[in-house]
């Protein structure tokens, strides 16, 4: 066919342009000429002009003015013009353009043209860009062509039908009978089209699937013919006869045999035959084997066949060709859940693939390795995975890190190994781990009390060498703060002893505080750790005091707040410092709705009197949400309500390490309503039980609030100690509890404990208060709750 000379000249002109600007100039001129030509009457060069326009379009320039020309050319009687017109329609028009509807009629006419090549143009265009309306319009035509035409048209009509079914699902019913009859054709093109059509129909409609199950014997027959037949020059590809058709038939068999014993039985022999007879030296053979393996694994095949399939995959894994290894791992990934042991046999090869150069292969190997980790092979696998982590590409790092954490958590052979592994990951890939790693690690460390010394030594050393990995630094700071005394003691069974002085430790923490690499959260950790050390070291308390006071004017609000509070702890509440900064209790796992790290920090903060943030009551209607609000507010379920700093108490006012029902406690708190009778008197007894009496009296009232005094007395025969009151009020009300007068109630009402409470109620809502009373009597702890619904009026 002679080339379009005008087109080629234009292409040459564009290619010889030396700069982008020059090229644009050439193209603009050409486009202007083309537009002018489009407006003229029909001349011989219409197809050339449109071809030129399509070239320009492919370079990325706008060509929408050619759309109408396409429509006109499609309607032309000349084949050359039709051809280019249809090509233009496929390139420039899509179903979203209005002009596409205009060609529906042309397509309809051309579908019944006497010349098959014209018909094929119409079919091709319909299958490429037919919109739903066009499909609905022309579906009967397609059905007609499916039945009564030559094989050239039939194969195209079949694929056109596939497109129609994809666009308009309901029309599937129309094509089902024709599809069935097409399976009897001999022409491979038509067969292929028929198989694709049946696959599409079966995938969309389960009833159609049932009906087509009857075709399984026919399909098996066709497949057998392809596999056993000798060399056929028409369809042979490197020794395999028509691999495209074979693969499609295998896929259809997979869909038909899924979850169906009878169909699966019918194809067992065939699959075995294909699996054993196909030549696997070239890619084509492997393509067919791959599809066979996928089919075997998906249907209800017998166990021998499954073993054969997994063996084929194992062979693929050892293949030199990277592509084959890649798809072997993809397939193994699918069956690692069901045939775990079979895949375990190939673990060595898979782990080797972690070292492959190719990023895609590495990714697959990583996923598969993580799936293969089990209690027996955890140590060796972890070695490999950690090695991989140090050299893996960036995009796989976070996936690798989280996979390693999960595996370590599930199968850790010992605590020390677990901690070591996590530390190793943090040192190598600390920047890519998820946020909850830090609290999880902290919780793990507190749980393994025998390893505190070892852990803190290791972390200290890690901190000295590198302070850029934020998660590692955060954990290190926290540990140094908590277990600084163990660090300073110097001896430790698990690691070599090293002399660490207090100055060294404080230096390290100060470096973190001042480094520009530290994130604000990390600096917060460091400051708190420094503060905690004030009770654990002896000589350098002044240094700590000065550090803390410096940060009292820090720009970062969070740090400033902490520093101010710690300062206050030094100045006004020095007597409580030891108690406040005591060792943390063991944190329970999986307490709801919080992160452990947050809570420990928050809880330490909460007891500061300078910032008594009151808990807010929850309206009984929405306990669940509000529990979360409450928890968020306090940062932890350990301290559900605000407690007052007990004077000189030895009870740690630190988080109560109750279980996951801490949230539940809160709910219980709300659930247990014990309304007291209202007494319209300035003093009202709100609680009276087991000898403990609590009264509430109004001191003064203002427009937006009131002050009450709670008085507690003990009428039993034994002393009560550690008496504390906690209070909660509705959301918009603010509560301020002053320091109580004491915390012990001697027996028989010898003395009372009073506490003043200031309530401010700017929104004038109904004032309610819930009070929790806790005390120790005769060695056992008691707790109770009471709700005050109305306050005494004057």
């Amino acid at each position, binding site marked *: *066919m002679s080339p379009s000379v005008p087109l080629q000249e234009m292409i040459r002109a564009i290619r010889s342009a030396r700069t982008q600007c020059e090229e644009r100039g050439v193209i603009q001129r050409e486009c202007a000429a083309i537009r002018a030509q489009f407006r003229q009457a029909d001349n011989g060069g219409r197809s050339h002009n449109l071809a030129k326009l399509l070239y320009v379009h492919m370079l990325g320039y706008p060509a929408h003015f050619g759309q109408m020309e396409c429509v006109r050319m499609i309607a032309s009687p000349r084949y050359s013009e039709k051809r280019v017109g249809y090509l233009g329609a496929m390139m420039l028009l899509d179903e979203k353009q209005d002009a596409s509807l205009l060609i529906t009629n042309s397509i309809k006419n051309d579908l019944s043209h006497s010349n098959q090549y014209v018909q094929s143009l119409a079919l091709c265009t319909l299958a490429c860009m037919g919109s739903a309306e066009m499909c609905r319009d022309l579906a009967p035509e397609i059905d007609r062509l499916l039945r009564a035409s030559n094989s050239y048209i039939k194969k195209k009509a079949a694929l056109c039908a596939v497109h129609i079914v994809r666009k308009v699902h309901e029309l599937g019913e129309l094509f089902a009978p024709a599809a069935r009859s097409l399976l009897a054709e001999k022409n491979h093109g038509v067969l292929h089209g028929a198989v694709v059509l049946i696959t599409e129909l079966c995938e969309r409609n389960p009833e159609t699937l049932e009906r087509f199950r009857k075709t399984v014997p026919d399909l098996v027959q066709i497949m057998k013919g392809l596999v056993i037949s000798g060399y056929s020059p028409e369809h042979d590809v490197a020794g395999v006869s028509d691999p495209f058709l074979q693969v499609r038939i295998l896929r259809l068999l997979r869909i038909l045999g899924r979850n169906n014993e009878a169909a699966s039985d019918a194809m067992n022999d065939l699959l075995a035959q294909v699996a054993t007879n196909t030549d696997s030296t070239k890619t084509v053979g492997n393509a067919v084997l791959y599809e066979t393996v996928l089919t075997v694994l998906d249907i209800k095949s017998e166990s021998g066949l499954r073993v054969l399939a997994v063996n084929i995959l194992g062979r693929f894994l050892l293949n030199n060709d990277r*592509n084959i290894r890649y*798809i072997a791992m993809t397939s193994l990934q699918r069956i690692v859940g069901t045939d775990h042991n079979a895949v375990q046999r190939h673990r060595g090869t898979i782990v080797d693939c972690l070292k492959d150069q190719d990023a895609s292969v590495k990714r697959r190997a990583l996923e598969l390795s993580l799936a293969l980790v089990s209690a027996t092979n955890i140590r060796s696998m972890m070695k490999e995975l950690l090695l991989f982590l140090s050299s893996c590409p960036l995009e796989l790092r976070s996936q690798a890190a989280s996979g390693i954490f999960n595996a370590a958590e599930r199968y850790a052979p010992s605590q020390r190994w677990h901690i070591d592994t996590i530390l190793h990951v943090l040192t190598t890939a600390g920047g890519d781990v998820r946020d909850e790693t830090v609290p999880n690690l902290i919780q793990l460390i507190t749980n393994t009390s025998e390893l505190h010394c070892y852990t803190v030594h290791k972390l200290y050393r890690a901190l000295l060498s590198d302070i850029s990995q934020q998660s590692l630094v955060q954990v290190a700071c926290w540990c140094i703060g908590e277990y600084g005394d163990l660090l300073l003691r110097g001896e430790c069974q698990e690691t070599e002893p090293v002399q660490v002085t207090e100055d060294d430790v404080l230096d390290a923490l100060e470096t973190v505080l001042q480094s520009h690499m530290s994130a604000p959260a990390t600096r917060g950790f460091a400051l708190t750790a420094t503060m905690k050390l004030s009770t654990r070291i002896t000589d350098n308390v002044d240094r700590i005091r000065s550090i803390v006071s410096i940060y009292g004017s820090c720009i970062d609000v969070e740090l400033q707040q902490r520093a101010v509070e710690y300062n206050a702890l030094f100045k006004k509440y020095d007597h409580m410092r030891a108690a406040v900064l005591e060792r943390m209790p063991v944190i329970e796992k999986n307490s709801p709705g919080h992160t452990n790290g947050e809570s420990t920090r928050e809880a330490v903060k909460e007891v500061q009197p300078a910032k008594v943030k009151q808990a807010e009551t929850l309206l009984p209607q929405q306990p669940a949400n509000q529990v979360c609000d409450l928890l968020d507010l306090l940062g932890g379920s350990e301290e559900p309500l605000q407690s007052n700093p007990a004077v000189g108490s030895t009870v740690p006012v630190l988080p109560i390490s109750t279980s996951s029902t801490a949230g539940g406690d809160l709910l219980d708190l709300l659930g247990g309503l014990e309304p007291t009778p209202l007494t319209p008197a300035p003093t009202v007894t709100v609680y009276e039980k087991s000898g403990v009496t609590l009264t509430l009296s109004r001191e003064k009232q203002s427009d937006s609030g009131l002050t009450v005094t709670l008085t507690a007395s003990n009428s039993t025969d034994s002393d009560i100690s550690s008496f504390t009151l906690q209070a909660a009020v509705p959301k918009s009300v603010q509560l301020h509890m002053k320091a109580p007068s004491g915390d012990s109630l001697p027996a028989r009402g010898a003395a009372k404990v009073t506490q003043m409470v200031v309530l401010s109620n700017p929104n004038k809502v109904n004032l309610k208060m819930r009070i929790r009373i806790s005390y120790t009597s005769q060695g056992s702890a008691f707790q109770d709750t009471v709700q005050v619904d109305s306050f005494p009026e004057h």
Partner: protein
Amino acid sequence: MMRFLLLFSRQGKLRLQKWFTPIPEREKKKIIRDMTTMVLARQPRSCNFLHWKDLKIIYKRYASLYFCLAIENQENELLALEVIHRYVELLDKYFGNVCELDIIFNFEKAYFILDEFLLGGEIQETSKQVVNRCIESSDMLQEYYCEGETDFPGTWRKYHGGVYEQTCILTCGLKGIEITAGEEYRSRMYCI
């Protein structure tokens, strides 16, 4: 099904684009950019399969051209490699030792060949010879078909490998055409 097929040079210039689903123009440009960057960044001896969004991208380099085919997740990647290879073979047979310039200067022919091989995102014809025959017949039709004429005239020219050749046709018709040799050219073609 296949979603799209792209051919681009080593410098990232697009030589052919075939889309099997309707996609807005802007989206197409973005996809082309993504594909070229992803594929051109690959190392020489790496795996031919990539993951992109929810599709599998199969690419292969032939001389100075990259063939990039996107298939859905349930398709067979190795077969997709074979599809690319088959298309290259078809181009090679048609143009005779095809090179990138052939595809640049005759891009519409490349599309016609593709349209005889793939349709609606699926393989249309699995036999090389049939596809070749169809292309050649369509080409002949393009040369001569006019409304009302059903017979081809006596002589025709064929552009093959850069040389214009003229041959005589002794018998012709829609069912079979026999051509006697010109000085350098001998061929036998059949219409289906």
